[in-house]
């Protein structure tokens, strides 16, 4: 048999123009953020809905509480510092033709890592106070806590990969200098989303 399935030919490849690469990266990340935002909204809607229904008057058992306020506040501060570090790095990178100050990025990554470790600790210690089977309130808080931890983990993985590019001088490659900006979208989104979820867990 002889079909298209068997054949590939043509020996030409074509590079994308820089403005198309930038547009592609921006659009891709923004679409990802749009989709992920829907996940966050689903969690907020679920928590709010269960709270409003208060089925069997059992949404929140007596003694139920959110994760401690102070640990949450400390994590929020760590995230804000991380965001600030990232902003300064991206700004210096943009102004100096790809030669940003890596210290700012390392600071940003370290604080993101601190937030991840802290969030994981918060999530693990939630179970110490809550008793299985968990009430709907405890369920929502647990979901928010682990969802945030997964988001922070993703940001850390992306940060480590970006650090690899920085150490190999691949951020200032001509045509690829949009990377800090586009990664920044996800970085800042992660920070805003995490803080928003934390605030929701306080008011629910």
């Amino acid at each position, binding site marked *: *048999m002889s*079909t*298209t*399935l*068997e*054949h*590939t*030919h*043509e*020996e*030409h*490849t*074509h*590079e*994308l*123009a820089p403005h*198309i690469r930038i*547009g*592609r990266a921006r*659009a*891709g990340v923004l*679409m*990802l953020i*749009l*989709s*992920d935002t*829907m*996940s966050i909204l*689903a*969690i907020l809607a*679920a928590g709010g*809905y*269960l709270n409003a*229904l*208060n*089925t*069997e*008057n*059992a949404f*929140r*058992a007596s003694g139920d509480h959110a994760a401690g306020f102070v640990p949450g506040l400390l994590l929020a501060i760590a995230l804000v510092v991380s965001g600030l570090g990232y902003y300064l790095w991206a700004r210096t990178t943009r102004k100096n033709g790809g030669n940003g100050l890596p210290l700012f990025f390392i600071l940003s990554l370290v604080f993101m890592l601190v937030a991840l470790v802290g969030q994981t600790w918060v999530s693990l210690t939630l179970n110490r106070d809550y008793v*299985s*089977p*968990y*009430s*709907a*309130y*405890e*369920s*929502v808080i*647990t*979901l928010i806590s682990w969802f945030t931890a997964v988001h922070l983990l993703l940001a850390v993985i992306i940060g*480590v*990969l970006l650090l*690899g*590019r920085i150490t*190999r001088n*691949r951020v200032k*490659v001509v045509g*690829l200098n949009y990377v800090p900006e586009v990664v920044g979208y996800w970085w800042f989104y992660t920070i805003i989303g995490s803080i928003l979820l934390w605030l929701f867990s306080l008011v629910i």
Partner: protein
Amino acid sequence: MTQVSVTTEVKRPGIIHRLFPSVVSGILLGIVGAVVFNVITNAITQDNNQDATVVFSYVGWILFFFVGIGAFNGVWKWGFGRAEATTAEELELAGKDQGLWRYFRYTTDHKVVGMQYLATTLFLFFLGSLGAFMIRLEQSQPGALFFNPSTYNTIVGMHGILMIVASIIMISGPFGNFVLPIMIGARDMAFPRLNALSYWLIFSIIPVFFSTIFLGGFQTGWTGYAPLSVQTLTPGMDAYSITIIVFAVSTTLAALNIITTVMVLRTRGMTWGRLPIFVWGVILSVLLGLTAFPTFLMSQVMVLMDRVFQTSFFIAAYGGNNWLYEHLFWFMGHPEVYVIALPSMAVAAEITSVFSRKTVYGRRMLLGSLITICILSVVVWGHHLYTSGSATALNAAYMLDTELISIPTGFFFLALIGTFWRGKVWVTVPVLFIAGMLVNFVIGGITGIYLADLPTDEILHGGMFVTAHFHFTLVGSMVFGFFAAFYYWFPKMVGKRLNPRLGTLHFWLFMIGFNGTFLSLFFAGLQGEPRWSANVAPPFATANLIASLFAILIAASVFVTIYNVIITLRSGERADANEWGGKTLEWSVPTPVPLENFEHLPVVTSTPYDYGTPEPHPSDAEGALEPAPLLPQEES
């Protein structure tokens, strides 16, 4: 746009290089990952938590499968490689000089991914059809014939979810990948690696899904309703939830890739106003999926948390509520109908224009109607909860906006009939399927109005009437649209012509079988037969027997299609580059389509439907409305 000539000679790879990375190494490593995660989870959980073991074993399978198939190689290189991937490496990743084996690797070429989707879709449809036939077999006579109720429920659930998954990907997957980039004048998708990832994610969950059979099945049906899903003791439910989560991730990645491709990679002159209707249909569909599927994903995360970690999202005794599941599910579930419908409707418009040799009638009106359907579809989910007791105050609002969808849908019919009107219609197999789609869609649409109306829905919900309605909408309408697309683009994708006589036989068997089966079930529904019953009660026996007999014709149509594809691949006639005389860009490139589609990117100067005055096709010498063989189309 720079063009680089590549003269690099690619060495013939050895057997080790061919197998690693490939689907073989992916499966091997995936099995190892599943075993390792299984052992670790068993060691960590002291209370022998079977659900946790199943969930984390599958997580291990999926993670290690992707390590084995090489999905993380590009990610690693992006971060820690010394340089960007070279042209030769990119070409190798795109499957250059790898023959058929490129279909079994993490290949990035959009045409390969499109073919992978097509094969997978047909495979899933085949298995789903087997399930359907088993259902009809069981329901052919009153009483338990072959299956106990639990097995029957699992078969119904598996049939349902298989068909839904296959329907969601049936057009955006194969044709959205293979045809769409060429249609807009692009060389590939915006994110080729992500494209491969979205396909292989679906591949990775096929064994997970079928393992439900060996894990006790799932008795909830395809909707996976809580609290039954949470209370079901068999771990088959865990496999179901994992399947849905990974599928949602896959569709999200595919959606963002397709949207970005259309936004960024359109060739010069391909303005939004000149985009083919098919591209609009796909982009609206995936945009809908991108925003609707995350809630379904989260619903399954909550189900798994309830099952594995004893949370209580859906357990009323601890403050949870089943309505939450229903809202999260149907916020995806209703738009999902339009995720399936929009590209199918767009295919219908595309094909009607080509075979009528006329521009799409009321093109802007049609486009406006597709956009309106897209918007309205996200605010109507509440009609699925009319009888659940949730949010009764909103019933009137849900009733109104559901019925509003009939208006833009009516414009779709108007556009198609207007395009056929006074056109010199070349009646081919794709056109037959479009005609069938129109007839079935009228039945599916009108019966939908009865279900959108609260008073009639109170009587008809939960009955066979609903089953017949959504089969007319999804199968009789949208799957017919898929087959139209299949016969239309198969010559471009495979380079061979499907046998038109067998295609026509396929259509008539399917059309008669389908209508016979589901019109009978409408009758059974009006008699009062409930949907979820393993055993047919005597009052409904005749209608069900007739339905089962007609289902034999559907089964025959499936085998005719398989036979047609096999003989075409073995000894079919070679197809022309522009088989039907179409004006969209995919018909301007050679067959087989070169690796990067175009040697020089085209410049678009008009819409793709400028056929001028309708003229008969040369093969249509006898006049309009006569069946014509699948002959090559001369450019006029």
